[in-house]
């Protein structure tokens, strides 16, 4: 490989790295799942990056509904229903089930 080609490759990698670091770049945003089983969010605490989407799925035979005060609110999720939310800003998002408030969880967005 010639020096020029190597330089060019290096430049492309730099561009790719820059894209990777760019917040909210849709090509690299991930979807992470939280499952609801036995009245518990798993994982209870989750770290994600800005632009990532979290999808909760209810596996219980009882409906649940999510509330994060002032941030997001799901519809009532019956068995096997899901709810997704894309996090556009950093911060700690505490949430709970509005039907069963002893169920709590947290999404840390970095």
């Amino acid at each position, binding site marked *: 490989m010639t020096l020029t080609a190597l330089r060019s490759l290096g430049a492309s990698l730099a561009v790719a790295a820059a894209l990777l670091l760019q917040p909210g770049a849709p090509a690299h945003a991930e979807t992470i799942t939280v499952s609801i089983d*036995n*009245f*518990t969010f798993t994982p209870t605490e989750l770290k994600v990056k800005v632009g990532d989407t979290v999808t909760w799925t209810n596996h*219980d*035979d*009882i*409906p649940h*509904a999510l*509330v994060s*005060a002032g941030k997001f609110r799901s*519809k*009532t999720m*019956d*068995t096997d229903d899901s709810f997704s939310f894309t996090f556009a800003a950093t911060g700690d998002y*505490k*949430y*709970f089930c*509005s*039907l*069963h*408030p*002893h169920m*709590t969880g947290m999404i840390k967005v970095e």
Partner: protein
Amino acid sequence: MSHHDHHDEERGVSRRKVLECMTWAGTGVLWTISGGVPRSLGLVDAAKAAEKAAEPAGMTFLQISDSHVGFDKPANPNALGTLEEAIGKINAMPKKPSFMIHTGDISHLSKASEFDDADRIISQAKLDVHYVPGEHDFLDEELKFYKERYGKGTMGAGWYSFDAGGVHFVGLVNVVNLKAGGLGNLGTEQLEWLEGDLKGRSKSMPVVVFAHIPLWTVYPEWGWGTEDSAKALDYLKGFGSVTVLNGHIHQVMQKVEGNVTFHTARSTAFPQPAPGTAPSPGPMKVDASKLRSVLGIASVNFKMGDQPLAIIDTPLQG
């Protein structure tokens, strides 16, 4: 209780087990409360219990709870059917109760069709029904179905009081504005109303308070209690006879504290596990042949004067 359960119990009686057995033994036990001391009249079968209920001198009313109309999961694929059976039991009672209270979770998902179905079946009892909502009755987008149907003449999210047969009845709502990590919640506005409602009332008048979530702390780990119920109970101090009737936990539990008798009723839809005996309070799947022994109704009898009060829990079968 089945032989199998006793066998398990013999392996060591933990507090948990005792609680569980208490729950199951609630089937057909007739309780009287005299001077704040609970006295069991012994195990009676459902037929005897019905007989006793047939001869009360005072007023009788019925409690049904947690119909969860719309629920169709394995724990009971036909919650409407078992509600219909419960109403059938009521219609077969030799002496018709004065009225009925429903302690919430009428529907499973607050759908108009679920409320319609519930009304169609419950109205077959041809009794006045006094409702309080459960958390499952406030799931529609606009939170309007419950209030439209059952909330006429009530305050706030649906609380109210009325007198019947010399007894003061108070229906409370503890299923709205729940806070993260917390339990059931009455809220300041309702507590202020309650204080005013009870003020100036004769302390010799028996009071019955009914609400969906237990007003005593049954098991906070599962949210089975009410954050600010101590304040409500404070206003009830000094009354000679206070009975608190709840639902939500889908099993019979009783407790007496001073002048107050707490009681939770069975569901007509599906049983839930005794506190701490399962990973979660989700529906408990029992053998289809046993389902009707863990569902049921409760009748309450007041005899004026000497003040004994009897609550009889009758399973749909068993």
